[in-house]
């Protein structure tokens, strides 16, 4: 925090996100401003339907912002071509993959498409990147399987490996732990944390695992009903950001434990 030479990799400026139809636009969230430093784990938190996925889709250029600007390494994403963006930002989405017979290795290798020639031939560098991604996510024993044979937890690791193979500075994951049990959820969080620390990638994910998120994340983008807070855990606690996140009679934030506690009644 003290160092003045921060490398801001992603920046949102007066961003309004939502869905634009022909004449009307449905605003999901507005006044979004944040700066994200390189090499951090960022979680996007907030209740269902408040705009987490919309934000992730907007910063990954899947959909357009209603107004405002997004910058990746000081460059407005409006000016970044899709081709260029594919070498800077990779995705792990919640949507189900179409049923196919791709092997885990082939699926991860698809992450190299931004770098391969028109016939999609893997160079030795591509193979090396794929192998590294497989090692980092510890899925060596899965690589010859078809992806439909995997459990949800394994598949999530494979999709993360695919994003790693794409060799981008930023990885965005939309609810990567949505279908996972607690044990696998924690494994994914620790994997992402480890990746941030060892590879200096910037990882942004949305999640409903609020207790895990606030413990693992370097920074949190918190959607509440009125404001969007961005900052680390102490900052959010100081600003009472968690106080009104959920109905008080059901879930409370305990400042001492730095955890959300369920009210048993």
């Amino acid at each position: 925090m003290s160092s003045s030479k921060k490398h801001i990799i992603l920046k949102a400026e007066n961003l309004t996100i939502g869905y634009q139809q022909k004449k009307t636009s449905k605003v999901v969230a507005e006044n979004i401003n944040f700066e994200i430093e390189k090499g951090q784990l960022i979680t996007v938190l907030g209740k269902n339907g408040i705009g987490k996925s919309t934000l992730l889709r907007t910063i990954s250029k899947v959909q357009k912002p209603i107004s405002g600007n997004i910058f990746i390494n000081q460059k407005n994403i409006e000016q970044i071509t899709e081709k260029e963006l594919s070498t800077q930002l990779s995705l792990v989405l919640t949507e189900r993959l179409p049923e196919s017979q791709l092997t885990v290795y082939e699926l991860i290798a698809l992450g190299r498409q931004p770098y391969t020639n028109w016939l999609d031939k893997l160079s030795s560098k591509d193979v090396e990147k794929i192998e590294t991604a497989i090692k980092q996510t510890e899925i060596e024993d899965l690589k010859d399987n078809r992806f439909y044979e995997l459990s949800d937890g394994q598949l999530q690791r494979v999709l993360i490996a695919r994003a790693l193979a794409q060799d981008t500075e930023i990885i965005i994951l939309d609810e990567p732990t949505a279908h996972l049990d607690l044990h696998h959820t924690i494994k994914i969080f620790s994997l992402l944390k480890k990746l941030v620390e060892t590879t200096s990638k910037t990882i942004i994910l949305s999640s409903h695992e609020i207790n895990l998120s606030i413990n693992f994340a370097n920074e949190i983008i918190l959607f509440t009903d009125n404001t969007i807070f961005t900052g680390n855990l102490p900052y959010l606690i100081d600003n009472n950001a968690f106080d009104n996140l959920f109905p008080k009679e059901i879930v409370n934030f305990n400042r001492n434990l730095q955890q959300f506690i369920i009210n048993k009644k």
Partner: protein
Amino acid sequence: MENKSYTKHFILLLILLIILFFINISFGSVSIPFKDIFNSLFNGNVTKESWQTIIVNFRLPKAITAILVGSGLSVCGLLMQTLFRNPLAGPFVLGISSGASLGVAILLLGSSIFGGFLLTTSVSNWSLPIAASLGSFLVLSAVIIAANRVKNTMSILIIGLMFGSFTAAIISVLAYFSEADQIQQYLFWSFGSLGNLSWAELSVFIIIYAIAMLATLTILKPLNSFLLGENYAKSLGINIKKSRNITLLITSVLTGVITAFSGPIAFVGLAVPHIARMLFFSSNHKILLPAVATIGAIVLLICDTIAQLPTSEFTLPINAITSLFGAPIVIWLLVRKKRIFV
């Protein structure tokens, strides 16, 4: 890495293809000894002059047509299934073949409605394929415009079927106002036939086929990325719109030219990609494209050999054979495997 095991598959299939090619040429209403068939193909040294004509001008073009039609339709089916990420897609299901039929119907039947203009220009080597390609392109574009609005793949298939019945209705109306001999001409065309092509027509066919097949190589990369869905494909830097349009263009031209020359042939486009996926246990288009093309050619050569009813004077409509033998095989394969892939 895994390519080694596939090489064996391909060699076996190619040998099978060559054998079937010769078997196909050997059978017909006139029985010709195999030695003479071989001689007529390679050194023109044949016992009877008429045999030479039969083989070079009838059987050889027919066998080549079978290969082109079978591989072409199957590749179209593969492209459609990948593009829509739907194992039920194919040139027939999406109404593209019906579009080609509509083009041909307007050319053959439309003269009574649109007057002599069409009649005078009709049925040269190029007019049938152009009409059929335009027809299939028209229907395919309509399906795509509709598809962009609904997103849901099931709806897209239903829309395709609707376009199919819509074009069929137009064809009925055209037929109602047409002369008997025009209807007969159209009806015979719609039975499907691989055997009526002259070498001149065949060369037109081969040129269009070759261009379309070479063009599929340029979309190999987008096709593989489509296996992850459009959002992932886009995030990999693929230009979705461009790739989709090229895919559709290739499909409509291929389906158009094939339907023009051989009539609407059912089943092959839908089924062969599934057979290839089962045999090769892969979804990678680098493997599937050549596999689908080879198997498609093999399947149609077999169907055509059956259609000739060896030693008989009759030839059954190829369209009937492909469905009659093909549909049960596909049902059997799918019931046994219980899982269908894209």
